[in-house]
């Protein structure tokens, strides 16, 4: 983890201060531009505001569109789309080689996988059903990553959200749906947020490595759910029949999300997720808090000296990440399962990370990415049933995708830097 501003020595402080406020106009322009295109433009056009105002978006400008009139950079869009796609294909190819070595025909496997995800109405809707929690989890991961915080704790946060989302409606039956649904959602968001807040505040205050703490939080949440499902939350019906299945009672019908296509599991949670993707985009790129979170992620030192509370933003980003994962848990409970049961997370927490990385850590890019991975999960189930190839193949493929994408990131960066350097000065600001 990068040192917080207070651990800088005097000469470094001087450098940072001068970088932001006094000297080196070019470096400053670059830094500011990387923080916000709009501020960069202002610097370029010499529209100098007050010292601090240069870095902080003022209330009058934050609401306006950033790229008004700027042409969409299609090469960038294609690059952002093509690189991850190449990563996915490479991972599939290598997994295919492994399959061939295991004397399993990779073509049969992949055909069955694609067929399962896209071959039928049910498959298609299932892909969207699985894309919904991935999108929600991924949104949280995006926010955290933007603050340079790696949230591996989505699994546990989903569980906590699902727990709250199931326990609240179960404990107050008889309430109408328009009360219960928001209540469950808010409760689940809060539970997930709490589970994210703990590692967040530990990182912010004590610099505890968030990857390790969130992995431990995952294990604790899992055991907590097991404990509740084998005790207080176990379906009384199960107890009466003596089956002792580890699942809760069925939730009241009022809290079920409406189904969109008859005979399928597709539910209206998909719309909630898509709307929230737009909300998160606006939050990160159009609000002061979102701006601060990104600034902290890009340079904690510089943002500290610009008056941004680095610790608060680290804790906040982790809390929000937990909240979105918690919401994914609620939506899964009230949209698909209608009860709490073991194995509810289906690895969404980890797959969501991969989707977020492939979506370029951007809420809008995340939408197609989560559909791709939703399809991959659905297809894997089908593959396991139809041609008996274990669905754990997909976990291995996901791992390889992460390795490829994280490894290829530096090439993409240096390529983009070269491209930027080769441009005439004036066009740089429109990026």
């Amino acid at each position, binding site marked *: 983890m990068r040192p917080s501003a207070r651990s800088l020595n005097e000469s470094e402080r001087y450098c940072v201060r001068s970088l932001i406020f006094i000297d080196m106009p070019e470096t400053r322009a670059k830094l500011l531009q990387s923080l916000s295109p709009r501020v960069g433009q202002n610097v370029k056009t010499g529209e100098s505001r007050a010292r601090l105002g240069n870095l902080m978006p003022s209330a009058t400008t934050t609401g306006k569109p950033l790229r008004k009139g700027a042409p969409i950079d299609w090469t960038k869009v294609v690059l952002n789309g093509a690189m991850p796609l190449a990563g996915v294909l490479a991972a599939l190819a290598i997994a295919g080689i492994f399959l061939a070595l295991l004397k399993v025909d990779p073509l049969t496997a992949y055909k069955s996988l694609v067929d399962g995800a896209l071959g039928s109405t049910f498959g298609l809707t299932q892909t969207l059903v699985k894309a919904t929690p991935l999108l929600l989890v991924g949104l949280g991961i995006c926010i955290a990553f933007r603050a340079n915080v*790696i949230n591996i704790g989505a699994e546990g946060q989903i569980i906590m959200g699902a727990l709250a989302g199931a326990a609240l409606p179960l404990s107050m039956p008889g309430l109408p749906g328009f009360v219960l649904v928001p209540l469950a959602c808010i409760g689940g968001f809060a539970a997930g947020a709490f589970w994210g807040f703990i590692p967040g505040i530990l990182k912010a205050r004590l610099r505890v490595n968030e990857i*390790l703490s969130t992995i431990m939080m995952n294990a604790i949440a899992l055991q907590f759910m097991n404990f509740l499902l084998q005790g207080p939350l176990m379906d009384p019906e199960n107890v009466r029949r003596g089956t002792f299945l580890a699942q809760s009672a069925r939730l009241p019908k009022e809290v079920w999300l409406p189904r969109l296509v008859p005979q399928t599991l597709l539910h209206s949670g998909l719309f909630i997720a898509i709307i929230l993707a737009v909300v998160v985009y606006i939050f990160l790129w159009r609000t002061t808090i979102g701006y601060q979170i990104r600034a902290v992620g890009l340079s904690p030192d510089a943002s500290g000296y610009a008056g941004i509370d680095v610790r608060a933003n680290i804790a906040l980003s982790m809390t929000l990440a937990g909240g979105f994962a918690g919401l994914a848990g609620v939506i899964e409970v009230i949209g698909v399962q209608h009860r709490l049961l073991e194995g509810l997370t289906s690895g969404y927490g980890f797959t969501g990370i*991969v989707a977020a990385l492939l979506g370029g850590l951007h809420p809008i890019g995340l939408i197609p990415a989560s559909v791709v991975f939703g399809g991959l999960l659905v297809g894997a189930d089908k593959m396991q049933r139809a041609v008996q190839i*274990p669905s*754990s193949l997909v976990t291995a493929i996901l791992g390889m995708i992460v390795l490829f994408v994280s490894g290829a990131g530096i090439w993409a960066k240096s390529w983009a830097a070269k491209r930027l350097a080769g441009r005439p000065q004036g066009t740089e600001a429109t990026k």
Partner: protein
Amino acid sequence: MKGLFSLNVLTGVLNSMIALATPFLYAAIGETFAQTAGVVNLGVDGIMLLAAFGAFFVTLMTGNLWLGLLAAAAIGLAMGLIMALISVTLKAEQGVSGIGLYMFGLGMSSLLFKVLVGTVKTVQGFQPVSIPILSTIPFIGPILFNNSVLVYGAFLLVPLAWVVLEKTNLGLKFKAVGQNPAAADSLGINVVAIRYLAVCIGAILAGIAGASLSISLLNLFQDDLTSGQGFIAVALVYFGGWSPIGVLGGALLFSAVNSIQLWMQVLGVNLPASVAVMLPYILTIVALMMTANRARQPAALNKPFDRSEN
């Protein structure tokens, strides 16, 4: 509850403690090398899983435990090279690539197990070897000197790692590239090569840690055999303050908690199993909190080295 304090149980708890500390020691000492050189390898758990399967499978096929161990080390080396390629040569974010390596190991070990083995099978693992005379010491003899080869190896690794890190030229190079790679580079130390070496040593030891589970302690393989022990091992490195001796202390503390937790379940202490299983994870977080803000952390930990930036 009374049963927990009898001598027999105490012997049992201590015996399990020594055994349970073994995989932690291999993995955490290995990770100490990698982190001393500035690379956080979070893929330890994935390496342990795949290597545990490799050791198990080779032993199952050939009946030769040493070949199994060799397979585990080879798998560790291969995965270490991948990690080093991505985090040292390609300078990727180490946390993310480590998670990728973990997911690869988790998925691949489960896939291979299901395709190649299918059902739960056990192998004849490394048997306890009594050390003459020492093992006849009352009470501590059977606990300390009647273990399998891999257990002895784990505890011998601690002083060995300490000597390498503190008393040799190579250990100094590890520290130099972990503290200040630019300075090390200017003195003619090949930063990339030293970091590759450290990551690979760590990964080989992580592989042996996996083997110690599948062909020495449990003698079987199943999905997610390690259940996050690799991550706890990484946490132990922080806990131990990047020193093999500290890591030993941490590993013993953790395995003590684990062993007491297991024995409480064996003895039927009235505590839900799920709550007992939580204990080591809670302890890990507490340990990370207590040892946070340590000044001893290698200064360039988690930072890729780029010559052109210096």
